[in-house]
């Protein structure tokens, strides 16, 4: 048609000016030198030589934002990394990424990064040169410093791969066993139960194979084990036969928000509920595997009515859950934070695991995981037991030298443990850190390290989601933005060189890695996919190597269960739920503007803390959204705004983790409150973990109001068809089974 308008015509008309969106991202001038109207268009559009829009190149690396170890692809243009996306080759996340992964770039470009070494002179930290820093380091912990043995400690977050190796190496050289691996968001109770009952501390969970998932507070879509992977599996689970998800927890997590049935059990009684269900199943003889009578006997006390009394979950519902597990099987029963982190958390999780055994899920939906062949590279998973140990060691003044890396105990430790106070007792504190967080600023020597996108490293996910085990490579996506930062590995190497000449031959961590990877055991190197290339090139390109490993089946052990609910007689009627969320995580991402600006998935609050309350409780207290309440425990109190919704148990008050930093840069500092601070120092009896969900509190109206800054005007659709919900049978009617 003579007057057909196309992009070129339009551009001719609007020119570069009009190109606002119409042209953004034309990536080569060839695309605008056109048949018709060439001159005009070119005259408008042909940019200067230097301004020819470049092409993004993608490099593979590994995400360091949490412990899941997702593979990343980073888009690099003009020497800058612009955006990260999931690495399709990684079996962990299959090319997907979560909000924290996407935000890696903002951690990397963060304006508050530490840009030069700092040393404590008098009371203040002052910038020094690397030489000065290193000499100080040498004098303090070098071979002739006399520092030896257990008076040296190292506290880190979850570490794996060759970072773990060199940390071990250094501590071995020094002769210390004090490697505290600390994570607030952990699954250590779950792991120990799995170890004891299945013989595999991180079994492979097949969400996709399950017909119904019963989750006791395991926020597997948000914070549990490997969220991105789980979400992918969850999608498969929902599609096709469409399994049903039942979530039992005191406070609605992201997973709870997606549940078909969300059951608020009285906090700390989940174990009883699990046993009640198990008992009912046994009574009905629905159990898939035979259960020794002893077990049956001890279960029999958990009658429906008794369980209802304890948990507050109506009998009818318990029955329904039980029948669902049977009818819709194979089922998968898991337990997470709000179940684990009580004084009897182990028993609770064990009771939950019992359900799996009874329903015969072992081998179907729960399988042995593919452990990485080389033990030394496997992940050292963080927990809170080590936090308690560290606190004790500090109190008793057992440490002269303390290294901190990738963790922030001064922030995450409950106030009563007085970690930050007793830190001052340590003679020499060295912090490997990117950011001026609470712990770092207490150090005597601060060593600025590369960001996850500038540094080399290898990661072995603690949770191996595949039949073959994966090792994921973290390679720099760009030159360091700050001249004065160094790689963690590099610094460790130079420390090692002081004591062990063998490391002399490595110029830097890069060369170390290269050799180390090449020299990995045969069962890794021999099974590299794309065998044509050597393992290292393969890793550089794909970002991962997979090691085929033979897994032996799980060995389920049925032991008889006891679960006692602790009776509370203190003056603290409510349960504090320090809930974690995908985003700020345990607070390590509070300095990332994006993650501050993105609303919490459930409460939709931004840039601050809040306390979630049930409408009933709110009515009792006479508070409405935005009013301030004071949450008081035996060990302290915090004051924050309330958000009221029906996704929480009336006896629970939930304050999310992540906020309440005293330091940690412009975006985090002085924002909100930190629920961890008011936790009582209660221990899980069997594992010695910190029972983060066991603290009892009382909530009082602070008689102060501020507008609650959250997303969304009306909480209801007011009859519009925005999100319409249909029943499963309608789905089956219209779309069939698969």
């Amino acid at each position: 048609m003579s007057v057909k308008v196309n992009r070129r015509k339009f551009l001719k008309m609007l020119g570069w000016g009009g190109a606002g969106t119409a042209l953004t991202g034309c990536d080569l001038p060839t695309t605008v030198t056109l048949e018709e109207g060439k001159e005009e268009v070119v005259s408008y559009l042909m940019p200067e030589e230097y301004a020819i829009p470049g092409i993004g190149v993608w490099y593979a690396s590994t995400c360091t934002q949490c412990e899941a170890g997702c593979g990343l692809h980073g888009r690099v243009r003009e020497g800058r990394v612009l955006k990260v996306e999931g690495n399709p080759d990684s079996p962990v996340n299959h090319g997907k990424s979560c909000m924290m992964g996407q935000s890696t770039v903002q951690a990397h470009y963060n304006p508050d990064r530490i840009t030069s070494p700092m040393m404590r002179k008098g009371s203040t930290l002052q910038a020094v040169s690397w030489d000065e820093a290193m000499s100080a380091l040498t004098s303090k912990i070098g071979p002739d410093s006399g520092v030896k043995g257990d008076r040296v400690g190292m506290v880190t977050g979850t570490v794996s791969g060759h970072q773990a190796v060199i940390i071990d190496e250094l501590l071995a050289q020094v002769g210390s066993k004090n490697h505290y691996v600390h994570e607030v968001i952990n699954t250590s109770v779950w792991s120990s139960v799995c170890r004891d009952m299945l013989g595999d501390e991180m079994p492979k969970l097949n969400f996709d194979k399950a017909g119904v998932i019963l989750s006791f507070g395991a926020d597997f879509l948000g914070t549990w084990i490997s969220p991105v992977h789980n979400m992918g599996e969850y999608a498969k689970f929902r599609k096709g036969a469409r399994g049903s998800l039942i979530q039992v927890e005191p406070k609605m997590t992201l997973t709870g928000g997606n549940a078909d049935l969300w059951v608020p059990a009285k906090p700390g009684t989940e174990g009883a509920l699990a046993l009640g269900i198990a008992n009912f199943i046994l009574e009905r003889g629905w159990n898939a595997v035979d259960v020794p009578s002893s077990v049956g006997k001890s279960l029999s006390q958990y009658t429906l009515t008794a369980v209802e009394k304890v948990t507050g979950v109506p009998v009818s519902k318990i029955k329904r859950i039980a029948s669902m597990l049977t009818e819709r099987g194979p089922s998968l029963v898991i337990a997470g934070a709000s179940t684990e982190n009580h004084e009897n958390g182990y028993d609770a999780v064990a009771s939950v695991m019992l359900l799996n055994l009874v329903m015969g899920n072992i081998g179907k939906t729960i399988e042995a995981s593919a452990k990485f062949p080389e033990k030394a590279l496997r992940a050292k998973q963080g927990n809170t037991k080590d936090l308690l140990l560290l606190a004790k060691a500090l109190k008793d003044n057992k440490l002269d030298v303390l290294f901190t890396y990738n963790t922030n105990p001064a922030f995450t430790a409950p106030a009563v443990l007085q970690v930050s106070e007793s830190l001052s007792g340590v003679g020499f504190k060295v912090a490997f850190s990117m950011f001026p967080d609470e712990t770092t600023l207490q150090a005597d020597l601060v060593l600025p390290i590369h960001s996850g996108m500038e540094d080399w490293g290898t990661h072995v996910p603690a949770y191996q989601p595949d039949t073959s085990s994966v090792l994921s490579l973290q390679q720099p996506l760009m030159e360091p933005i700050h001249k004065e930062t160094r790689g963690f590995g590099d610094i460790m190497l130079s420390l090692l060189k002081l004591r062990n000449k063998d490391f002399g031959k490595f110029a830097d961590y890069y060369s170390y890695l290269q050799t180390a990877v090449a020299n990995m055991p045969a069962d890794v190197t021999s099974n590299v996919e794309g065998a044509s290339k050597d393992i290292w090139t393969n890793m550089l390109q794909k970002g991962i190597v997979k090691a085929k490993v033979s897994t032996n089946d799980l060995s389920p052990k049925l032991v008889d269960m006891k679960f006692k609910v602790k009776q509370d007689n203190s003056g603290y009627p409510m349960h504090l739920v320090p809930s974690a969320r995908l985003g700020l995580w345990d607070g390590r991402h509070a300095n990332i503007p994006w993650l501050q600006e993105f609303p919490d998935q459930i409460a939709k609050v931004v840039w601050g803390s809040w306390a979630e309350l049930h409408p009933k409780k709110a009515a009792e207290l006479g508070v409405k959204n935005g009013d301030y309440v004071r949450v008081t425990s035996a060990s302290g109190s915090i004051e924050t705004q309330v958000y009221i919704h029906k996704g929480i148990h009336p006896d629970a008050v939930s304050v999310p983790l992540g906020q309440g930093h005293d330091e940690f840069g412009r975006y985090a500092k002085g924002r909100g409150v930190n629920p961890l601070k008011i936790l009582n120092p209660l221990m899980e009896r069997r594992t010695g973990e910190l029972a983060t969900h066991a603290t009892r509190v009382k909530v009082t109206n602070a008689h102060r109001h501020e507008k609650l800054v959250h997303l969304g005007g009306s909480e209801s659709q007011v009859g519009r068809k925005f999100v319409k919900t249909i029943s499963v049978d309608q789905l089956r009617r219209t779309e069939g089974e698969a």
Partner: protein
Amino acid sequence: MSQVIEDKVIDEKLEWSRINADVIASMQAPRKAYWVTVFVCLTMFLCAIAAEIYQYKMGLGSAGLNNPHMWDMYIATFVFWIGMSHAGTLLSAILHIIHAQWRKPIYRFAEAMTTFSLMTAGFFPMIHLGRVWNLYWVLPYVSDRGIWPNFRSPLVWDAFAISTYLSSSALFLFIGMIPDMAILRDHTTGWRKKLYGILCLGWRGDDRQWRNFRRTYMLLACFLIPLAISVHSIVSSDFAMSIMPGWHVTTFPPYFVAGALYSGCAAIMTLFVCLRYFFRMEEYMTLNIMEKTCKLTFAIAMVWTYLNLIEFSSTWYGHNIYDKEVLIAKATGPYAAVFWTMIFCGCVVPFTLCFQKLRRHMPSMFVVSILLNLGMYVERWMIVAPTLAQAHSPHQWDVLWGSVIQWAIVFGSFGWFGLLFLVFVKLFPCVSMYEVKELCFHLKHEIEEEEKAKKHATTKAAGKAEEGSGRTAPGTPGLEGA
């Protein structure tokens, strides 16, 4: 219409020379209150300037606007001023065509009001723009890139309509003033003489000029009436053309026009009282005229009320849930207080105009007219805000009360208008001298007629006939129509 009055529109025995003298005097020595008002207006205006500078620098966030509330008081005020502009020209033109003689002493300042409120209104679309400096992109000029404005957009219609209306009503005002300019040229001295000498374009008052003058004036009047109506209909289509609940209303054009006339009349009453006081115009702006204005206002108020009812009921019985929600929200939601204020001021207060005692009591008329104006302003805001506060997407519901900046600019607009107006009445006669003379002349004539002629009825009939023909065949004047 002026048959049933017990006192005259104006005392026909006024000496013509006195008319000149009084009006000219008024332009030279107003009361002190005049200067006070000028000062007040000036300060308000300056505040607005400051606010606008800040907003220009910072962006519209400073006006407190947000996602659902992309428009707020700026547009409401814009509509208000446009509405205000209607009484002047429209009334003057209509009354001129139907030969309502009593318009003559007051139409001048009414028309001035039109022009100035238009000049005020014109600012608001600019102020509310995100990038004022590109304002001219709305104009259909030939650009080397072949870009044109989007002629579908009611905002572009506004640009056309307002510029047409502004120029036309300004011309109407000016043409009407030419003979008075001549008078002033002859009877003032110094710079004023020079000024008026230029402005009267050499008016001599010979019959040829008068003849063409009359025809021109009539023609303009004929054009202005449909124009005025179209202008406010177009402004209403800013809302009516959208799909927003509470805006997408078929009856909006007439509703807006009625509202416009309403607020215009109210404004005329206010200014009437002020001028009458400031310039000691008791003899010209007589209570009789006030009464007539009041009656007119009352009539229009009732029309407006009726249209309100239509709108509400059609929404209520219609099937559009969104519209219904907005309506209910208006009456019961966070804006309820404002809404009921509007109903009270717009529908209840006008009933005070039924009492002659009040109509003839200037201070109370002042208060009443202010209340009416308030009601009409609030009406405009009640059109803009509640819809934005509660449109289709509940997720974006939000209630907004404008920021200080916004309020400052809105108030400032009143200052600016006042300033323009006060300067005008100081420079130009706010009472049309030559037409007051005509008025007296005709009244006298009429009375003589009545005295001498006992065949009253027949002349009346003839007069009617003549009046009737008066429109089609100019030259035969319709003085008996008075």
